C-alpha cells in the first residue's frame, strides 16, 4: 500500500514524536509513505478567518503538489487540522466549479492545477484501522499493553464536519460525536480502554492564546474527565490536542490551582510499543508531563530525549575576546 504523506508544520518540530512514530509503525504495517514535495502550511484555522480565496489556494497548492506523482491516488495526513483543510478544499472545489476555477486561476501563477476529486484524503487513523485492518494490527502485537488504562481522545476535526449528509463525498469514517475507531485499535493492542465521554470534545485550539480563561477551562474538562475515570494516560491523534493537553497542562494547573499529571501520548507511539519497537525510535520523552510512571506499568522505560546541541550563534562584528577555553591536549 502506497500513499502520499502530508506531515504538516506541527510534525516537523513540536510533534516530531508523532512523525517518527507514524513512520515507524506504518513501515511495520507494510505501508509506504511518499512525502508531498515541498509542501506548505495548510493555514490551520487562521487563514480562513482572513482571506477565503487565499486560504483555499494555500491548501490547494498542496493538493496540486501531491498529484505530481500521478500513480498515487490517496493522501494521508496524521494531523487533524491538515486532514480537515485538505478534505474541505477538495470537497468545496468539487461542489462548486466556479470556486474551483478561481482557485486554479491562482495556482496557475506557479504553473500548478488541481482537479477536484483526484485525491482521496485520509487520516492516518482511518488508514491504519480500515486499510491495514485490526486483524493485521493484532498479528503484529508482541508486547500487549496489558494493565494500562487509556482514555482515547479524538478531538474535533477528525470526525467533523460530516460532509456525508449529501452522499456526494461519503460519510466521515467514524461517528461524528461518539467515534469508536481509536477505542477498537487500543483494545487490539491489549490496553484497557476507558469509555471516555469527552473523546470528541474540543481541546481549545488556539484559545490559550486569545482567551486564557476559555482555553484553560476546555483543557481542564478533558484532563479532569480522564482523571475521574482513573486513566493512566490520554492517547490522541492530533498535534494541536497533544500540545494543548500536554504542553498547557502545567499553565492550566497553575490557573486553577490543580495538580493534574496526566500524560498525553500519540496512538502511533503506543502502537509502536505494542509492536516491540524501541521507545527511542518512537519519540518518547518529549512529552512535558512525564509518562514514566504510567509506562512502567507495562515495563517500558522512558528514555531521556536526545536534545539537539544548540550551537551558539556568533555575533556579527564581534570584537570582544572569545570565552577562554582549556586547550585540548593533542596526541
Amino acid at each position: 500500500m502506497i500513499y502520499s504523506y502530508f506531515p504538516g508544520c506541527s510534525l516537523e518540530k513540536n510533534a516530531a514524536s508523532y512523525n517518527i512514530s507514524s513512520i515507524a509503525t506504518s513501515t511495520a504495517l507494510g505501508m509506504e509513505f511518499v512525502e508531498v514535495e515541498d509542501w506548505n502550511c495548510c493555514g490551520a484555522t487562521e487563514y480562513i478567518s482572513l482571506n477565503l480565496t487565499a486560504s483555499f489556494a494555500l491548501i490547494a497548492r498542496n493538493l496540486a503538489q501531491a498529484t505530481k506523482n500521478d500513480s498515487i491516488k490517496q493522501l494521508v495526513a496524521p494531523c487533524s487540522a491538515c486532514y480537515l483543510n485538505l478534505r474541505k478544499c477538495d470537497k468545496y472545489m468539487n461542489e462548486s466549479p466556479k470556486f474551483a476555477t478561481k482557485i486554479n486561476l491562482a495556482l496557475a501563477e506557479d504553473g500548478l492545477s488541481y482537479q477536484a476529486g483526484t485525491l482521496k484524503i485520509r487520516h492516518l487513523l482511518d488508514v491504519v484501522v480500515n486499510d491495514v485492518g485490526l486483524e493485521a494490527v493484532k498479528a503484529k502485537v508482541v508486547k500487549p499493553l496489558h494493565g494500562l488504562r487509556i482514555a482515547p481522545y479524538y478531538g474535533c476535526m477528525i470526525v467533523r464536519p460530516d460532509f456525508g449528509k449529501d452522499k456526494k463525498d461519503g460519510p466521515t469514517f467514524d461517528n461524528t460525536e461518539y467515534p469508536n475507531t481509536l477505542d477498537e485499535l487500543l483494545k487490539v493492542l491489549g490496553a484497557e480502554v476507558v469509555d471516555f465521554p469527552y473523546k470528541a470534545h474540543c481541546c481549545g485550539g488556539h484559545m490559550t492564546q486569545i482567551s486564557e480563561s476559555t482555553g484553560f477551562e476546555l483543557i481542564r474538562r478533558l484532563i479532569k474527565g480522564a482523571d475521574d475515570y482513573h486513566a493512566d494516560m490520554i492517547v490522541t491523534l492530533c498535534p494541536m490536542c497533544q500540545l494543548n493537553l500536554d504542553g498547557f497542562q502545567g499553565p492550566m494547573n497553575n490557573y486553577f490551582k490543580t495538580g493534574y499529571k496526566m500524560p498525553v501520548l500519540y496512538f502511533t507511539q503506543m502502537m509502536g510499543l505494542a509492536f516491540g519497537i524501541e521507545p527511542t525510535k518512537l519519540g518518547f520523552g518529549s512529552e512535558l508531563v512525564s509518562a514514566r510512571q504510567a509506562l512502567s506499568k507495562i515495563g517500558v522505560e522512558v528514555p531521556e530525549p536526545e536534545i539537539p546541541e544548540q550551537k551558539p550563534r556568533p555575533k556579527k562584528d564581534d570584537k570582544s575576546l572569545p570565552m577562554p577555553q582549556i586547550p585540548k591536549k593533542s596526541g
Partner: protein
Amino acid sequence: MDHTPRRIFAMISAGMRDEVLKSNTPWYCVSCYFCTARCPQDIHITDIMYTIKRIAVEEKFYDNSKASDFSKTFINWVENYGRSFELGLMGIHMLRHNPFGVFKIAGMGVGMVTKGRMGFTPTKIKDIDGLKAILAKAKQLEAQS
C-alpha cells in the same frame, strides 16, 4: 461572548449587520464543528462564523484586536516562509498583547525548548516565490468578487 450563536443567526436574519460584525461571538468559535454536525437544517455554522470574522476584519468593525491579531501573526509567517513558526508566533503575539504573561508560561516554554519541540528558526519552503505569486493572485481574485 456578547451574543449566543443562536442570537447571532437571528440578528443576521433581522439584517442587524453592524451589530453582528461588532460582536465578539465569532471570535470565541474554536472550529469544533459540533454545531455544524448537529444542525437539522445543514447550515455550515462554522463557515459562517469564519465569514463574519473575515468581513469584520476587512471592514475594521472588530476592535478587540487580540483574536484577529493572532490569525494575522500566524499567517504572516506562512505567507513569508510557507510554513508556520510557533516560537515566532507566540513570541510576537505575547509581546504585543500580554508581555507579562511570558513569565506565567515560562516553564512551559523552557520545557518545549529543552525537549527539542520548538525551533529557533522558521523553515522556508523551496518554492516560496511560487507560493507568494499564488497568494497574491488569490488576494486579487478575492478583491474582485
